[in-house]
């Protein structure tokens, strides 16, 4: 398998996510979760080499589950935010690499890769900035308000997915 810049970035991000979460969980003494996280990271890398399309999605879901669990365990928020961003970008790169490998012939490959990496770096930067701001801002909301905004968010997202799904099928 030829190691392009996307492959290298994916490798780094997967290892980074694995290490951050593993260290975070190790600090709480939950070694079972540490082993599971390391196993997931290795499984993701193996899946990339084996050409399993679903390995990235499985890895992202597991890491997000581990991050969500970490919220309950009071793991450092900054580290969890970094894990979310790096797991998301690793998943994106995995999907991107799959798309390129499924195509028979590619022209302007380096340009496509460069543009993609530029875009996800912008997304990473914005995510970290806005995520950090969201962590620092403390808002006192009653349960009712939180429920209201939550339901509104659910309805909006459902409607958005519905519209995007129909648009995509046209």
């Amino acid at each position, binding site marked *: 398998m030829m190691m392009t810049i996307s492959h290298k970035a994916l490798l780094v991000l997967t290892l980074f996510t694995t290490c951050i979460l593993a260290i975070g969980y190790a600090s709480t003494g939950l070694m079972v979760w540490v082993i599971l996280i390391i196993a997931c990271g290795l499984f993701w890398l193996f899946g990339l080499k084996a050409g399993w399309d679903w390995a990235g*999605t499985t890895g*992202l*879901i597991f890491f*997000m589950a581990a*991050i*969500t669990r970490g*919220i*309950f365990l009071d793991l450092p*928020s900054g580290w*969890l*935010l970094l894990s*979310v*961003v790096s797991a*998301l970008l690793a998943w*994106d790169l995995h*999907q*991107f690499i799959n*798309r*390129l490998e499924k*195509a*028979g*012939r*590619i*022209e*302007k490959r380096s*340009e*496509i890769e460069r*543009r*993609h990496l530029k*875009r*996800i770096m*912008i*997304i*990473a930067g*914005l*995510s970290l900035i*806005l*995520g*950090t701001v*969201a*962590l620092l*801002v*403390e*808002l006192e909301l009653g*349960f009712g308000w*939180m*429920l209201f905004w*939550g339901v509104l*968010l*659910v309805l909006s*997202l*459902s409607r*958005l*997915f519905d519209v*995007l*799904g129909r*648009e*995509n099928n*046209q």
Partner: protein
Amino acid sequence: MKKFFLFGPLLFGLLFTGLLTRTNEPFAFMMPLLIYLGAGILNRPDKISLKVARSLSADRVPLGATVDVSLKLTNEGPRLEELFLEDIVPTPIELVGGTSDLLTTLERGETLHLKYSLRAGRGYYRFQGVNVRTDDHLGLFSKSKLLRAEGRLIVLPHSVKLKSIRIKPRRTRVYSGLIPARSGGQGIDFFGVREHQKGDLPRLINWKATARHPHALFTNEFEQERVVDVGLILDARQRSYGRFNENQLFEHAVSATAALAESFLNDGNRVGMYNYGRVVDWTFPGYGKTQKERILRALIGAKLGEHMVFEKLEYLPVRLFPASSQLIFISPLLRDDKQTLLQLRARGYQVLVISPDRISFEQERLKPDPYIEIGKRVAYLDRVLMLNELRQADIQVLNWPVNIPFHNLVSSSLTRHPALYAG
């Protein structure tokens, strides 16, 4: 499942966690997902405005030739970040150079060329168009479209040039040609002697006959040469060719038919063709290059098949062929075909059978085995008996082991006078 649907469960999971814990962390962790989704939505592909033009290096080629296909695409719309295009190649065409798909990025007004080479079997192929799909850089949203770029390719059957084949049907047509007409007149071959008539050339006087009859002059007469009606019957029944590499053997039969049609038409004869198999495919007799084209087109579409009605040769519509004309039957031959061929001969048709040898063809492709050897010998004896019975009925039979080039066999066997041909 589309990628963006994955975000639903993740976002709802974090939202639920936020409601449960009543902390701002889950909402902060939703930010990267929402920003990613937002970036995808903002950059999702617009409609595809591509203009495509197809060109082929040749649209009519002989079997085995390579054809270069070139597609020119121009983007008349906004920039396409990731454009995947795939030319719909008809099956069963084989790509021999390049690929028929491509992933690239295309700016507004930019032109892209996609080239590849292919080789195809005998047949008629139609190119429909190009499937294009454009994705945003995150691969969340895509748009697909089929761009019409029609093209057609005709692959002709393999045909070899044959020497003039000597046939002698009982009936000829009125136009002059190369086939002896069994009647006296102008020609090359000596036919007979008749009494001298006013206007006969002095150099044609047969002095020997005249010397024996002092009071009369005798003139040499030559056999007229005319064109004839030739009916080619290509056996396209599946059962005639077996179930073992049958298409290869059939291709030999098709190429022999094409070569024969070309040879007889080049000699000025009137040729018709009947493709007897799955369907009724009759090419009405005609002359010249136009007829050759019609026959080649009919052969392009010839395929092996089975039909209950046309299982046996006895349903061959003989009345389509002019009475006492020359029939050429190209077939590996089945046992029950013998009776029909004898009946055709009895009706006055001059019959020539060109029979690709199925036994030697199949045996070459089987592993050596004593039982196969015995089976082959029995089958071969059966075949020899059948061919001899046909020859005894004054049917010309040419047994063709297909590893021998057809033109070699024809030049050694069919370019002599039929009466001299011993099979």
